């Protein structure tokens, strides 16, 4: 696919240690195929993902940023991902206000047992970013 469009996106995925990272691990153990474009950054909680981290990922050349954590109610720290759930929609809007396509950032809940969902989410997001084209066009043009 990447050969066809000539664009292989870089996607930074922040994954929480307790759910999504374990889910990604399980997907690997089960030999499921997830996109190679995903650059995993393990964080202890999706609540740790500050807006600065997402902005810096875009600045450093990411074409898309995924923030993934436990489902609401499953957070290892009880309400860490509640903060993520509030913060990320604000950041998404803000990206749109300055003209960065908000579709380039996504928040997804993936639990440790949802290896197939991890594959599904990452594949769909990679496909979306591939269609959107490189961010560099938008940022440095």
């Amino acid at each position, binding site marked *: 696919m990447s050969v066809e469009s000539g664009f292989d996106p870089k996607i930074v995925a922040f994954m929480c240690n307790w759910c999504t990272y374990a889910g990604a691990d399980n997907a690997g153990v089960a030999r499921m195929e997830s996109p190679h474009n995903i650059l995993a950054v393990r964080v202890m909680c999706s609540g740790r993902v500050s807006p600065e981290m997402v902005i810096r990922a875009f600045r450093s050349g990411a074409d898309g940023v995924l923030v993934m954590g436990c489902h609401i109610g499953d957070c290892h720290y009880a309400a860490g991902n*509640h903060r993520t759930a509030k913060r990320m929609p604000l950041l998404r809007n803000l990206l749109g206000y300055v*003209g960065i396509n908000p579709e380039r950032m996504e928040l997804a809940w993936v639990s440790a047992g949802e290896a197939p969902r991890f594959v599904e989410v990452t594949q769909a997001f990679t496909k979306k970013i591939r269609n959107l084209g490189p961010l560099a066009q938008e940022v440095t043009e």
Partner: protein
Amino acid sequence: MIAAIREAVAERLGSCDGVVALRRRNGGVAPHLFQKGDELAEMELSPRYPLMTVVSRLHKAFPAIRLGVVARGCDERAYVEMAKRNQIDPTRLEIIGFACTAEEAQACYCREPSPKHPVAGTPPAPGPPNPLVAKYDSLPLEERRSFWKKQFSKCIKCYGCRNICPECFCEACAMEDMAWVEPGLLAPPFPTFHLIRAMHMASRCVACRECEHTCPAYIPLTVLYDLMRRDIADLLGYIPGADIEAQQPLSLSLEQAPLKK
């Protein structure tokens, strides 16, 4: 109007250790701590300075003093958010509020041009919303981007927007952290610097517009912050500066402060 405020200040000087207000001296106007015996004729109401920052510094330097402050609507809103974040002790502060004039409200695009209980002035009609907000919000993505990139490219990274902001009091600032904002680059690379500040203004910005007035590059910063204010109201039903009892929702759980949409 100023006579009524001077009277209120003189009265407060009996019960408080001092009153923070503006004073004209040597041809300039600056914040001043009026104490017993000071010449109240030197007191002024304009231009605006972030007086609540002065109150906060005095409260921290002298943990027992009781202060009064001559405040506009924006000062009072700033006070509300600062008190929530432990920057001002509300039990040691008395607000002597006064309403802005209709012209001031218009010039500031101020939606609440008066404190809750003004001792002087009649609260005017709210100013119109900043027309730039609707204008740039309706532009297509590419045009918004070229507009903001052009604006941000004027930035000389003076940090004035942060320094003058009554809600910017963190001891360690993300905008000074080399991990997020690379040093030695002017203008700061799009979109790092300004997006970080805009994001941190969510649930804090009380629309006092001091940042925009002090920006030497004339960047229309409050357009971005007004949009953040709109979002936090739509998403979490929170209006910064409106209610001292309302907790700031970004640090609460979803049960305590649910998403509205």
